[in-house]
């Protein structure tokens, strides 16, 4: 070795969550005085990597060295003490406390054993000024601030801890262009002060402007490291994809004619600052995909259709008629016939301690009962049909649904909605965390339902699925539809480049959010 050990090094780091491997012998070298960008698709292992660095999760194997000495962090507090500070994607601010309280939270200034509020205020004001956010009042409560201001507080909080290694995980995702340029100036100054910065972003233009060094992650491994600017955007996308298809998808039928009347239509849907003028159509017999990076408004769009969001503007049409969907129970009613397979089956899809039978019939109880009394025979017939159709593997209908495997739980969630014979099916990343075999069954089921006349809107973070299952894909970016891909246009390259908003014929993207 050449004497000057790198500031921080990770070697052979592996981490598994259940059967899913998030990191597999990952390596990373971080040098002082440089900005290091980490790139990769959704689920490539970036988030797990920094969680390991920041002491949030412990790796299963591998070692980390700081200043050439072995380092292990039992908690985020321990990592902070060692000088590693992370700005997380999910904010780490305490909502009921003030901005100043939050900025000093891990090590408040003390006087006679109590928190010195004057000193605290001074530190907070300094940190806010350093982050270029002097407009935020230190006494304001965090919960009262809009998301973009919270993110600035998060950055100020990180700076107040005087880090040696600063990790920014999508830290600019909610910022305005003006804030982003302020933050960039701060980051460049920190680099010149000798800090090491680790920068995770999906915005290629930000990486081009900031980074000195880039590392690409794929399937939990670092697959390439290169000096920033030495590879074209296309080469980078190539590196991020590079994997073989492993799933078997059912063949797609001939496209539904574009002249067919849409079953579900949205016109200029907007909500808060998360959805902007979204218009789309889904026809009977069609599987339409929602693509894009995680968190670009896909979830909100599905919730909007399902009547969960208040203050929605724009129009929703079913079979050409404008409808007002004010709650999930309106959405599922026969006139509309909508079903939503939620993202988190454990909290939004199932009542885990209750039996398979109860979970299956919840959504359809009104159809199975007369005068409030459940027709047990009809219930049993329908349940038998569903268990057969989806091949749900269970030791019995009267065991808690929590005892089933993840894949079978997800089948129960889907079966529960199929019992109503929905005409419109919304799916929110339904294959997350389930095994490949069950995935295949779900793909085939989806196609079968579409062939039987359902309109399907399908959000997935897995590009393979979008390519293999969908007739059309709408790519969302920053709450708006950026691009529509039809038929053979749906390729991994097209999906990734439009998800990153670096599609050639679009106007060049400015800093931060699209103007």
């Amino acid at each position, binding site marked *: 070795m050449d004497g000057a050990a790198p500031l921080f090094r990770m070697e052979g780091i592996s981490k598994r969550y259940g059967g899913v491997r998030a990191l597999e012998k990952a390596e990373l070298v971080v040098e002082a005085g440089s900005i290091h960008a980490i790139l990769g698709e959704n689920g490539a292992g970036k988030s797990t990597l920094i969680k390991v660095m920041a002491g*949030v999760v412990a790796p299963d194997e591998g070692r980390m060295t700081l200043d050439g000495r072995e380092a292990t962090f039992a*908690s*985020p*507090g*321990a990592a*902070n*003490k060692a000088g590693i500070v992370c700005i*997380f994607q*999910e*904010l*780490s*601010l*305490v*909502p*009921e*406390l*003030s901005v100043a*309280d*939050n900025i000093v*939270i*891990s090590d*408040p200034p*003390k006087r006679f*054993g*109590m*928190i010195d*509020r004057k000193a605290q205020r001074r530190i907070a004001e300094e940190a806010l000024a350093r982050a270029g956010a002097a407009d935020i*009042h230190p*006494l*304001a*409560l965090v919960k009262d601030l809009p998301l973009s201001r919270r993110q600035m507080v998060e950055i100020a*909080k990180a700076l107040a801890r005087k880090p040696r290694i600063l990790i920014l995980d999508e830290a600019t995702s909610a910022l305005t262009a003006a804030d982003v340029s302020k933050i960039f100036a701060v980051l460049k100054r920190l680099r010149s002060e000798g800090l090491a910065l680790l920068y995770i972003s999906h915005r290629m233009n930000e990486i081009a402007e900031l980074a000195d060094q880039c590392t690409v992650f794929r399937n939990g491994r670092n697959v390439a490291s290169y000096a920033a600017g030495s590879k074209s955007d296309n080469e980078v996308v190539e590196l991020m994809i590079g994997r073989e298809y492993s799933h078997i998808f059912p063949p797609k039928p001939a496209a539904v004619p574009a002249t067919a009347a849409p079953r579900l239509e949205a016109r200029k849907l907007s*909500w*808060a600052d998360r959805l902007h003028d979204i218009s789309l159509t889904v026809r009977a017999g069609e599987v339409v995909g929602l693509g894009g990076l995680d968190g670009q408004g896909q979830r*909100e769009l599905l*919730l909007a259709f399902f*009547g*969960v*969001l*208040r*203050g929605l503007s724009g129009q929703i049409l079913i079979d050409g008629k404008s409808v007002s969907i004010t*709650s999930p129970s309106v959405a599922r009613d026969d006139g509309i016939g909508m079903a939503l397979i939620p993202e988190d089956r454990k909290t*939004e899809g199932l009542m885990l301690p209750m039996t398979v039978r109860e979970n299956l019939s919840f959504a359809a109880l009104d159809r199975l009962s007369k005068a409030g009394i459940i027709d047990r025979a009809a219930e049993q017939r329908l349940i038998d049909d569903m268990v057969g159709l989806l091949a749900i593997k269970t030791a019995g209908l009267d065991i808690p649904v929590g005892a089933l495997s993840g894949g079978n739980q997800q089948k129960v969630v889907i079966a529960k909605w199929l019992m109503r014979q929905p005409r419109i099916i919304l799916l929110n990343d339904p294959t997350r965390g389930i095994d490949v075999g069950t995935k295949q069954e779900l793909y085939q089921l989806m196609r079968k339902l579409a062939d039987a006349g359902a309109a399907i809107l399908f959000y997935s973070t897995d590009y393979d699925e979008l390519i293999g299952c969908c007739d059309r894909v709408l790519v969302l970016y920053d709450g708006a539809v950026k691009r529509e891909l039809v038929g053979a246009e749906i390729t991994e390259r097209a999906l990734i480049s439009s998800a990153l908003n670096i599609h050639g014929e679009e106007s060049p993207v400015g800093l931060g959010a699209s103007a």
Partner: protein
Amino acid sequence: MKDWRYWLAEQRGTLLAFGIFIVMFVIYTSNHPAGFTANVVQTASNKGVLLAFVAMAQTLVVITAGIDLSVGMIFLLTNCLASWLVVGTPMQTTLGVIAVLAVGLLCGAINGAIVIYGRLQPIVATIATGAVYYGIGLLLRPFPGGSVNEDLADALTGRAFGVVPASLVVLLAVVLVIWVPFSRSVLGRAAYAAGSSETAAYMSGVPIRRGKFAAYTLAGLLAAIGGLFLTFFTYTGEAAYASGNSYTLFSIAAVVLGGVSLFGGKGSAIGAIFGALAFRTIGDLLFVFDFDPLWQPLFQGVILLVAVSLGAFALFRVRNRLEWFL
């Protein structure tokens, strides 16, 4: 400068409770046959401080997004214990007071340890420990009885300087010695942070466990101070099950009236004190207006409902309906 606005927003719950209390108390004294006299104030404050101490105890735990259903029983247990120990020479009395307070601390610490390290839900854990504390109290005093150092009792339930009720002075001292340092300490802030968002607090390296443990432990101490005062007023110890339960429930009511959020992370023990005093005044109001005392629970319930509804208006601002259930 807009600093005062932020201060006002932070103290809104406390100020509202203060306002409710003042209005009710003015109505009470102005309709009282004797009027606003030192005697009337003394009687009212002696009744009020008991609930105030228990409500302070409840506040500490509620701030961490927990709940302590054993406060009323710690209050009874320490009352029974005080009726044995707080007697005799000044020296013996002092040791007795220390012992009673130590038992309160211990009860609180046991609650904290079970909830934090045993990872049991606070509601279940404290129902169980509350039953145990009550059981010990019953063993100490199967029948009402015992005695207390009457000089001390009379001094602390009488008037300081002839006008100010001594019990209020003690309440103020407890606020200054326990609540103020706690709320401004790192542990206190950890308790608030854990109550508001435990994940964010953990991610920020906040000592969550120690903060919560301190909150539960100090809650035991405050309930014990309440128990001591109960002994000073009654000169006896009594393991009265119904009374312990109603103190527990009233303490939750007082905390809510005082603007402390049951979801945790928000509120002040000072608000809870005014909540407790206001809650007590409801009963007194019925008395001066010659209502049948049978009406008291009904009126307390109605006033509580009205006060709590004020806090529910925030739900109208929620735009994603899933957030109703968070």
